[in-house]
């Protein structure tokens, strides 16, 4: 299945949003693994490791299950204020 991921911070170098293929019923952990190829190409592997994923209302844990077509966001370490 396809999960759409909005890019933020340093991940913007990959575009505003990418589509990532993961197994049916896959988790955030699976999504992270599938994103590794994109991250490696942009030298963002380490940043991917310490980043979180979120939906529109909450930051998700590694075990959270993704849905086909869902739009998530990748959140690298934050630096606002």
């Amino acid at each position: 299945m396809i999960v759409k991921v909005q890019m933020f911070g340093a991940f913007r170098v990959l575009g505003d949003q990418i589509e990532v293929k993961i197994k049916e019923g896959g988790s955030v952990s699976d999504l992270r693994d599938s994103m590794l190829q994109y991250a490696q190409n942009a030298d963002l592997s380490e940043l991917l490791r310490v980043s979180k994923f979120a939906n529109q209302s909450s930051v998700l844990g590694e075990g959270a299950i993704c849905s086909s077509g869902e739009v998530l966001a990748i959140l690298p370490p934050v630096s606002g204020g």
Partner: protein
Amino acid sequence: MNTNVEVREFDSNPLDAAEALSFVDAAGNGAGSLFVGVVRNLNQGRKVRAVSYDVFAPLAEQGFAEICSEARQKWGDDLRFYVAHAKGRLQVGDISIVLAAGSPHRAEAFAACRYLIEEIKTRSPIWKQEHYMDGDSDWVKGHALCGHD
């Protein structure tokens, strides 16, 4: 309504400290505490000419409201809060964040305002890209977020 939280496009509507203090004012309040964050011209020895703020707005605004709720639990239901964070490219001297806390007494206003900025800096989905005088740019290293299953 006793709380205002927002992410604002800087180009169309710059932040305004007076607006924040006006919002938290109330007849029963004897104190208004204000924090204004401004883009500075130097960071870790590098001369900065501008900063771009990237924000995941829906989650940021929800988080601002949660932090205000936490502050109200700590320092009183009668506190009023204003939180606004800029999004977009800001020049040195531009305002990136404005916070205000209004309270009957100064101790609670000071404490709550400090709590808001410290929590926002470590919990809000906001990213800062510095643009340097030498033409280089870099994303500022920050705090990792916590997630829940």
